[in-house]
C-alpha cells in the first residue's frame, strides 16, 4: 500500500473531467423531464453525438466544430423522439428505449471508416492568473474548455428554471400540462424545444467522450453512461446543483477507486468497483426532498 503514489491534486483534477460527459447528458435530460417528458433515449443520443462530433471534428480538424456537430446530431435524433411522442402520441418509455437502440445502430453505421482514426487534439486551457494559483489552479482552472461549458450549462439551466419567465412556463408545462394549456401556453412547442435541448446536451456529452476523454471513436463507447445520467437526474430530485453534485460524486469516486486499486489499497476490489454507484445513490437519496414533475411521462393532446 502506498498512499504517496496518489496525487490528490491530480485526483481532484481528473474528477472534473471524468464527470463531464455524464453531467452534460444529465443536465439536458433534467430540462426534458422538467417539461414533463421522459426520454429514455439518452444513451442513443449520446452515442450519436459521439460519432457525429468525431466525424465533424476529423473532417474539419476543429474540435469546436465537432462539438457543434455533436449537438446538432443529438438534437436531430431527439427530434425523431419528439415527433413520435408529441405529435403521434406514442408511449414515451417505449419510444425512448427504441431511440437508444436506434442510436446505437445508427452510430455504428456512421462510424464505419472512422475506427482507429485520431481526433484533432483539444488542448487544456491554462487560465492565466487563476491557473497559477497553487493547488486550486491545477484542480479547477487547467482543464479543457468543455469542462467549463458544462458548468455554464448547469448554471444557465438553474437560472433559467428559477428566474426566467420561459423557465416558469416550462415548469408549468411539466407540472400540469392541461392547466398550462388552459392558460394559453403551447405545450407541444415547449416540449419539443426542451427535447431538442436534451438531445443537444446528450450529444455534447457523447462528443466529450469521443473527442476528449477517450479520445477516439469506438462502437458502443458510451457503455452505459447515458443510463447513469438518467439515474442521476432522478436521484438529484430534478435540481441542477444537486445534479452537479451527483455527477462529480460519481466521477470522483470512480477515479478515486481506480487510484486506490493502483496504489494497492487493501479494500476488496469488488467494493471499490461498486463504490461510485453506492456513494452517489446514498448521498442523493439522503438529501432527497423533491418529487417528479406532475405530468412526467404523460402524453398531451389539446383535444382531451
Amino acid at each position: 500500500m502506498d498512499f504517496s503514489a496518489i496525487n490528490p491534486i491530480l485526483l481532484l483534477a481528473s474528477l472534473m473531467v471524468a464527470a463531464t460527459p455524464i453531467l452534460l447528458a444529465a443536465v439536458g435530460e433534467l430540462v426534458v423531464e422538467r417539461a414533463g417528458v421522459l426520454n429514455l433515449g439518452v444513451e442513443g443520443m449520446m452515442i450519436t453525438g459521439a460519432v457525429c462530433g468525431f466525424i465533424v471534428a476529423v473532417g474539419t480538424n476543429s474540435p469546436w466544430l465537432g462539438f457543434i456537430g455533436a449537438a446538432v446530431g443529438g438534437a436531430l435524433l431527439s427530434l425523431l423522439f419528439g415527433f413520435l411522442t408529441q405529435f403521434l402520441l406514442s408511449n414515451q418509455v417505449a419510444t425512448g428505449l427504441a431511440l437508444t437502440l436506434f442510436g446505437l445502430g445508427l452510430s455504428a453505421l456512421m462510424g464505419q471508416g472512422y475506427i482507429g482514426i485520431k481526433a484533432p487534439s483539444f488542448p487544456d486551457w491554462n487560465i492565466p492568473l487563476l491557473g497559477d494559483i497553487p493547488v486550486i489552479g491545477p484542480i479547477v482552472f487547467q482543464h479543457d474548455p468543455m469542462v467549463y461549458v458544462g458548468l455554464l450549462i448547469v448554471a444557465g439551466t438553474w437560472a433559467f428554471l428559477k428566474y426566467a419567465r420561459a423557465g416558469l412556463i416550462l415548469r408549468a408545462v411539466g407540472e400540469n400540462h392541461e392547466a398550462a394549456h388552459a392558460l394559453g401556453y403551447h405545450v407541444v412547442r415547449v416540449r419539443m424545444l426542451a427535447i431538442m435541448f436534451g438531445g443537444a446536451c446528450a450529444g455534447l456529452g457523447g462528443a466529450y467522450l469521443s473527442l476528449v476523454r477517450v479520445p477516439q471513436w469506438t462502437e458502443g463507447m458510451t457503455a452505459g453512461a447515458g443510463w447513469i445520467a438518467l439515474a442521476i437526474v432522478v436521484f438529484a430530485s430534478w435540481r441542477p446543483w444537486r445534479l452537479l453534485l451527483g455527477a462529480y460524486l460519481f466521477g470522483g469516486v470512480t477515479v478515486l477507486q481506480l487510484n486506490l486499486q493502483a496504489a494497492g489499497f487493501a479494500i476488496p476490489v469488488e467494493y471499490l468497483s461498486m463504490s461510485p454507484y453506492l456513494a452517489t445513490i446514498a448521498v442523493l437519496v439522503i438529501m432527497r426532498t423533491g418529487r417528479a414533475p406532475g405530468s412526467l411521462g404523460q402524453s398531451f393532446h389539446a383535444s382531451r
Partner: protein
Amino acid sequence: MMTMNRILAGAAVALGLATGAFADGHEKTKVGFVYVGPVGDGGWTYEHDQGRLAVEEHFGDAVETVYVESVPEGPDAERVMTQMALGGADLIFTTSFGYMDQTINVAGKFPDVKFEHATGFKQADNVSVYSARFYEGRAVQGHIAGQMTESNIIGYIASFPIPEVIRGINSAYLHAKEVNPDVEFKIVWAYTWFDPAKEAEAATVLIEQGADVILQHTDSTAPQAAAQAAGNVVTFGQASDMAEFAPFPRVSSIIDNWAPYYIARTQAVIDGTWESTSTWDGIAPGMVGIGEITDAVPAEVKASAEAMVESMRSGEYHPFTGPINKQDGSVWLSDGEVADDGTLAGMNFYVEGLTGDIPQ
C-alpha cells in the same frame, strides 16, 4: 453495469435472427457467433469477427453465419443462444469466458447443436472448449516491458479475476522481473471487457501513479490513446494488432487468430466428424500471433524478444518453467519443472513478487 441498452439490443437482434432463419429452411450449414463487445471494438470481438468472415470466405455459399454482438455475460446470453439454436444454427461459438454456464445450459437443451465455448473449461458431449495460450504473448510483452520501463512501474489494466487474466499477469510479471529485478506491477481491475471511458481512466490513473508501460487485458484501444496523450508511455496491442498506434506507444501486440480454428471446426460439422474437444493452441500453431516489434524498442531487446518467440514456437521454452514460487513464498514449480495445463487452466494465484490480492 449491465446496461439496459445491451440487453435490449441483444433481444432485438435475436428476434430478427430467429424469424429470418426459419424462412430459408436448413440446407446450408449455419454457424452462429455470440460476441461480448461490438465488432468494431478494434480488439477481442473484432478478431473473432475476422474469424467469422474467414469462415464465410472459405465456404462461400455452403455456410451461412449469423452473429449477435454486445451480449451481456448473464442470463441474457442464454436467451440469445437459445434463439440462435431455434433459428437453425448447427454450430455456435460463444466467445467470452462469462458465457460458460449459459453455454452448458443451452447445449443441454439442444443436443443436436454443436457448441464451442472460448476460454472456458467446462466441456460436454456437444460443447467443445477452445482458447489460445495468450500467456506466451504476455511473456514477450513482459520481456520487452521490463526493459523499456524507466520508472520500473508497469501498469496493468485487468478485466475480471479469471484464470485467463491471472495467467497473463503472472506471465508478464515473471518475464519482466527476469530482465529487470526492480520492476513493480500496479494492477487495476476494471470489471469490464469493454468500456472505453473507464479503460482510458484506468490508464490515466496508472500513468499518474508513475507507470510508463501499460499492459491491458481489456478490449478497446482507449488505453493506447491515453498513453499516446501522455507522450512517453509504452503500450502493447491487445487481441488485435492495434497498428494504428504503432510505432509508438504501441511497440508490439498479441494478435488472436481464430480463423483456422473456426474453419476447421465448421468443416468438421459439415463432414459429420465433429467431436467434443479441448483445444489450447499457442504461438506454434498460429493461434497467437506477435505483432511487429517496432523500432521504438532497442535492437538488442527486439532481438532477444524475437528469439524468445522462436523458442516458444519450437516448443523449447515454456513461459512457466520453474523455479517459480507462489505469492506466499511456497514452491509452485521446482527448478526446471514445467507447469501442467490443468494448473494453468485454473490458475487462481499470483506468483511471488506481485503485490495485492486477487479479488475473489
